[in-house]
């Protein structure tokens, strides 16, 4: 799995490519830990190029969400392919995360932070 990290203003973006499963959750966990070191963390995880995702990957995303929100930030998801979106819907994690169609939409969703922070 490939990881590409970039910033857009205060928003930190992680783009993943390939299969996101228990064998490669550690780099994502590390990225989240580093990203939330600055308080608060406004994170976007772009899954547009992820074709497979398992429960271990979901657990890391949930963990990142909790940690970011504890610091008044958030972790948002974008670019879900149909099969990955279905997994979010079946587990009802679509009710927990803010999910956007595109990375631009997800970053725009944080527009309030410029005024607040």
């Amino acid at each position, binding site marked *: 799995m490939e990881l590409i990290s970039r910033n857009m203003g205060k928003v930190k973006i992680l783009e993943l490519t390939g299969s996101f499963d228990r064998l490669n959750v550690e780099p994502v966990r590390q990225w989240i830990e580093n990203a939330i070191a600055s308080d608060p963390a406004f994170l976007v995880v772009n899954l547009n190029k992820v074709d497979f995702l398992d429960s271990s990957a979901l*657990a890391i995303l949930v963990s990142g969400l909790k940690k970011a929100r504890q610091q008044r930030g958030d972790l948002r998801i974008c670019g879900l392919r149909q099969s990955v979106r279905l997994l979010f819907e079946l587990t009802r994690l679509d009710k927990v995360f803010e999910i956007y169609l595109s990375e631009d939409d997800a970053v725009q969703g944080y527009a309030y932070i410029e005024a607040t922070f």
Partner: protein
Amino acid sequence: MLQSDLDYTRIQKEIELAQRIQVGLLPKQPPVVAGLDIWAGFRPANQIGGDFYDFIIGRNRNLTMVVGDICGKGVSAAMLMPMTRMVIRTAALGRHNHTPRDIVNRSNSLLYEDYTNTDMFATTFVGNFNPFNQTIVFANAGHSPVIYIPFGQSAQLLLADEAPIGVLQVCAVKNQRIQLKRGDVLIIGTDGLVEDYNLGIDLTTSYNWLLRKIELLVDRSARSVAETLFGSLQDLSKAEGQKDDQTLVVIKCV
């Protein structure tokens, strides 16, 4: 013998012991309940895993059924299985007549901190069967859809309505209700029944395959349904090996 071989052998023995404990925690036999034919089975992908199921007969003679799936596989998932099973069992045997929603809520509140500290969650189904009015009331927190086949009709999926245990501080799951009639079949499984991506099968296709397969088996006993399904899944995954733990609880109204 090399030290690495000795270490491997020792670890294997530890895992075999852990497997024996896990299997020991699962019900030895399905419960005998008037009006129901019940069967359950568990096939771990590795020797140990995070799936579990439980049957609890309450003081009011109602049957509570639990199917759970700790996220991940292998040792990490297996480590949380006994604790989770016991918390849910204790909540189900509580003093008051708890509904499945109450059981899931209570379990979530007890498990949330530990699940947060370990970056884990557990999808959970809790169902309560009342033998006097043949009704099942159930709550589904992020668990695989329940497969419901009313007698003479097509199979349908009953979806979860809330996130798994351990995700949110409050699990606001709702009670769902089915009035069972003779010949109805209910199947609660874990997502290992549909996870086979290496064969190029997506989730939607997998569920369609599973539903069509089950519709052909509904006239059989609960045990035959379960064993036939496990056999078919084993055939499907022969080339690549089983990818995830598989648990199946089959309930037939007789």
